[in-house]
């Protein structure tokens, strides 16, 4: 997988499929009655190894594929930031209006105190 190119990702998935197919062939051969225990064990071992490699290749290809799409994720995050900026702007305006209302409330309370000084 050293020379893995994300453009070839489908090819690597196909390789993985082929390895799994080969492993299935090994299993079928293993079921033949004419084989001795030693031969069966070898085929079993080989099938497990082939499936292991298939998984390794496919997993690595999957990771590389998602890794190659990181820029798309970043672009989506930029979109999220723009939406959040608008959201924050609106929240700020709401907070400002509430703040003004609060100040008016305070002023009103001060005026309420004035008659007691008159």
């Amino acid at each position, binding site marked *: *997988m050293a020379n893995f190119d994300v453009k070839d*990702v489908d090819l690597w*998935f196909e*390789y*993985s499929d*082929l*390895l*799994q197919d*080969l*492993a299935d062939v090994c*299993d079928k051969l293993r079921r033949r009655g004419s084989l*001795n225990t*030693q031969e069966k*064990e*070898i085929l*079993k*071992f*080989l*099938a*497990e*190894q*082939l*499936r*292991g*490699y*298939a*998984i390794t290749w*496919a*997993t690595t*290809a*999957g*990771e590389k*594929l*998602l890794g*190659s*799409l990181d820029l*798309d*994720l970043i*672009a*989506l*995050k930029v*979109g*999220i930031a723009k*939406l959040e900026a*608008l*959201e924050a*702007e*609106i929240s700020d*305006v*709401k907070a400002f*209006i509430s703040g*003004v*209302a*609060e100040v*008016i*409330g305070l002023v*009103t309370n001060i*005026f309420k105190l*004035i*008659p007691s000084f008159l």
Partner: protein
Amino acid sequence: MIKQMSRNFASRVIAIPLMFIVISCGSDPNLQKVREFSENANRAKVSLPVIANDIYLSCLREARYRTVSILPPDMLSPIEKREAIDKKINDLKKEILELSGADPSSKLSNQIRKLRLKLESDGETFQIIDLQSRIEAQKKCEKESSTLGPKMITGSLVIILYMEKLGSIASEKLINFDSQFNELKAKTGDLQGELTAIFNTPNEETAVNAGLDIANFILTAVFDGKRRETLSEVIPLANPRLKNYASGLQKVIKRVYVDQYLRREESSLDNYFIDYIEDILDSKARKEGNSVIALANTLISLDQDRWNPRKDEIQQRRSLANSYIALLQTIIDGHEELAVIYGKGEEPSKQVVENLLDKSNVSLKEYIKRSDEVSQNSQQ
């Protein structure tokens, strides 16, 4: 375990795909549909990480199916064993060579060399190798399969967060300053009352309220314009990115999880039970002619109670993956449709909203159904 992971994940942010479509249209076209969609989306968000986490879990389950023969295999002489190892290694190299059309990479060669050393240093039978391979396979899962799932979850989170923010921006509640202006009106009214009482000035409350209503109207109009502008900018720009990533996610789910992990798990499961049954049939007790009925019952029980249910579970996970792929496709298509509309500087009509809502509900329901099946089996 899956449920626990799901719960942990669900406690974080997950959203309601396409929910923004529902509320961006000014008024709800169909409140019942909206409520249904919302309920489904809330249930679905708990199930979304099941697949991503199951990549690692499938690997672990498969490792547990590495069989150990019931009966000791034929003992091999050191020469026979060396020959067997040589043959294995050569066969493996040959297969890989044929596939890649080149020499195995240095990493692969090293793995093969290590494997050979391990086999040669093992002085016992292949039975011991089998036990060892199970342990090593589990270790390999930790190393190899535990990173892809979290990567998928991270990607899904960004998509979902993006959808959530769209929903939040499109919400009518966001650009609604009524409660703030009502508060302001009330406080201004109180102040007017005090001023009138103290300075004996005419009460201007009605005029002030009218002014605040105009301010509210203008502010709402300004931000409504800004919202339209933002959505018209963000949605068309994000569309190819969303499509790319979601398509990549679909491919990974199909080609890695379904075609590789679940396939290997099923093959190993089949081999486990076939070997088990063959060993029973070849056993000394069987050859000595012990009760055929007892043996048949054992085999039937193995088949019905243990083998078939496990196969059904794998099939359910496959269906869950397919419904997740369909759900992602619904998100892609829905967003694409919106991108075209916003790209033209327009807003989606009620009919468009209703159609997208129906499609989303169908995909969500299907996904929830599959997810519930998998969860029920995990609990059993």
